[in-house]
């Protein structure tokens, strides 16, 4: 620590150069934070997926509906604890831009299969007993300023009523929270019984089942058993763990991971040049000073450590600033990507990358300082 004033002063020896280099590194880490943040936020959704839940969809595609009657059969299978179901309602509020992730569900089933969704008991009771009742996520409630007691009209792009209209009105009776993952607080649940009665077509069909298994180690067997139940029927199913389901879904959008990796490789390639050049220049200019330090008794290894620490100080300081900026800016991405918070793990990754960068760009100048011949250097 006693060397810090020396390091700090050395770093700012040429203010303009240090500031510019710092800015370049800050921006690189800002991009790292944002891109890697998005990437791992998506991955986190996969990681968070519950291991004791299976998703059963039509084997043709996610968009094909399944008979409601399948539920009792699935629930009767050994190893199955509880089954819930949902259907894609495809609705918006007032304007097609205001898309609302809305699903008709059976209240009791939904909230027991998804225990991470926290809903006060009396609100669940109200949901069960109100035909047009709806329970919404806390984030969604904030977004539109909806509160319990509000009447909310949604326009479904899929489901019509017999009168050929697509406008459905609901009464908000509860607001749920998901303390584990705040990004999952934007759903709009309403009663399946109301939906099934009122829809003009497709009655008796639901979108997908979520199957809670008693023992997570039995997931694979249960999944096979479910699919076997409906093999060779008109509505064959495909059952996979929640995790596999999420992964497959993300893969459809495209290989985000790959694109992010490509961009970051480019960014850091350029960064290596910028930072490496600064370190090289800085050492080159300071040859006489470094020689003086050596005459004062600084050892060869000490010189190596000194220059490397300078590089580390520069890179880690800038990385911190960049990652902090990314962390501050991250919520702005919500509209594009639906992710709310930058995963903290990205900061750790960023610092590791910064250390690596510091080492790669610092090692050659540091080596030069170590090998510096005092007599030669003092002669100028």
């Amino acid at each position, binding site marked *: 620590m006693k060397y810090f004033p020396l390091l700090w002063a050395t770093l700012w020896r040429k203010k*303009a*150069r240090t500031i*510019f*280099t710092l*800015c*370049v590194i800050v*921006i*690189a880490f*800002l*991009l790292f934070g*944002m*891109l890697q943040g998005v990437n791992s936020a998506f991955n986190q959704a996969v990681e968070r997926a519950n291991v004791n839940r299976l998703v059963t969809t039509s*084997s*043709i*595609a*996610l*968009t*094909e509906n399944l008979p409601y009657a399948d539920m009792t059969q699935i629930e009767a299978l050994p190893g199955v604890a509880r089954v819930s179901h949902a259907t894609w309602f*495809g609705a918006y509020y007032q304007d*097609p831009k205001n898309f609302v992730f809305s699903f008709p569900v059976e209240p009791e089933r939904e909230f027991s299969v998804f225990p991470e969704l926290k809903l006060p008991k009396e609100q669940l009771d109200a949901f069960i007993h109100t035909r047009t009742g709806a329970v919404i996520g806390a984030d969604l409630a904030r977004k539109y300023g909806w509160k319990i007691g509000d009447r909310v009209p949604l*326009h*479904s*792009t*899929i489901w*019509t009523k017999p009168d*050929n209209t*697509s406008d459905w009105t609901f009464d908000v009776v509860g607001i749920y929270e998901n303390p584990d993952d705040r990004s999952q607080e934007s759903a709009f649940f309403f009663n399946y019984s109301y939906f099934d009665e009122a829809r003009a*077509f497709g009655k008796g069909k639901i979108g997908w089942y979520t199957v809670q298994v008693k023992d997570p180690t039995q997931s694979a067997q249960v999944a096979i058993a479910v699919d076997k139940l409906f093999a*060779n*029927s*008109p509505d*064959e199913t*495909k059952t996979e763990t929640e995790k596999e389901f999420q*992964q*497959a879904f993300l*893969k*459809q*959008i*495209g290989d985000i991971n790959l694109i992010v990796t*490509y*961009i970051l490789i*480019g*960014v850091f*390639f*350029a*960064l290596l*040049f*910028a930072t490496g*050049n*600064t370190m*090289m*220049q800085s050492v080159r200019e300071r040859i006489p000073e470094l020689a003086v330090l050596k005459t004062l008794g600084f050892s060869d290894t000490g010189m190596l450590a000194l220059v490397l620490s300078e590089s580390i100080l520069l890179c880690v300081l800038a990385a911190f600033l960049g990652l902090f900026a990314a962390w501050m800016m991250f919520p702005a991405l919500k509209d*594009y*990507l639906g992710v709310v918070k930058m995963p903290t793990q990205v900061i750790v990754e960023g610092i590791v990358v910064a250390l690596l960068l510091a080492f790669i760009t610092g090692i050659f100048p540091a080596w030069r300082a170590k090998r510096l011949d005092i007599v030669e250097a003092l002669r100028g």
Partner: protein
Amino acid sequence: MFKQTTAITAMNLRAIPQRLGTSWVIVIGIAVTVAVLVSVLAMAQGFKKTLASTGRPDRAIVLRGGSNAELSSTLSRENTLTIMDATGVKKDADGKPLASAEMVAVVALQQRKTGTAANVTLRGVGPKAFELRPEIHLVAGRMFQPAVRELIVGKSAVAQFKGTEIGSRIAFRDSEWTVVGEFESNGDAHESELMGDIETVLSAFRRNLFQSVTVLLDSPEAFNAFKDKLTTDPTLTVDVKREAEYYAEQSKQVSKLLNFLAYFVGGFMAIGAIFGALNTMYSAVSARSLEIATLRAIGFGAGAVVVSVFVEALLLSLIGGTIGAGVAWLVFNGNTVNTLGSNFTQVVFHLTVTPGLLLGAIFWACVIGVVGGLFPAIRAARLPVATALRAA
């Protein structure tokens, strides 16, 4: 003035090899920025082109009112007949309307590259579908027969999905379909689809509702009359859109995301590159302060010094921009990428590096160079001659 400028510039440029390390910072920084910008924009461009070329100004698509995409739309058989008979729809020699009532189903197939399943559109088309869309033509095999479970597959779909070659059998809904033909469609969105006879597909999926009607109009101008006719018909609740407009809407989300990515990432990288350029040019000026001061002492003007610094910055960024654009063009042009398009299914598109994109990128590279060279140039001009001479 001109002579002076040339003299100093030549001196500066000759010094570049001595400061190769520093000069590389500008070149590499700008090259990477430009390469990323060009490739992401090429993606956006390719995506837009694929969906935009799917539309023709004299074709219109009709969906149930309020449904955003074919997948969420439903139309009864009765409605489809009303729509096809409306004024403005072009008739063939036999007086039949050139229109196709269609349904789309989403089916999951295994991708060749990853082995994971992805959604693909199965489109049931009416008998007039191919007169309606003359851009679709078979490149291998034959057309499907009505009332038989046969399919033709788009070229991009064949490339993306396993088991879609001619002669393959694809099983969905307790039924098996045979691929009998492969088609091209000018690289538009339909090339990522499977197509079969509408009645056969409806019955296999046990449906009786259609999802869209696509019609060929007498002329692009006939659209408004056609639209008015349908929207005022009390038996119908439909949305009528020009095909181009419909596909543009479908691609809006992805385009928005790609553009955002390009301008957000590209913008920040450009700022980073500017700082890199500033660094290089400042150190170029300070390394040469003695030379500059000497020239000023002899009587060279400040203007000549400013211009010479600018020229150096511009030249370096031009090199960087050209390398970046060149790499993006060589590596990415024509690459195929797939993502979710309309109807929640895969659409394949080609990265398209257009000349405009390349020129734009190089232009921005020069802007970075100019901004990065500005302050150092001013500093070079303001360098107090006496101090600089003494310091050396």
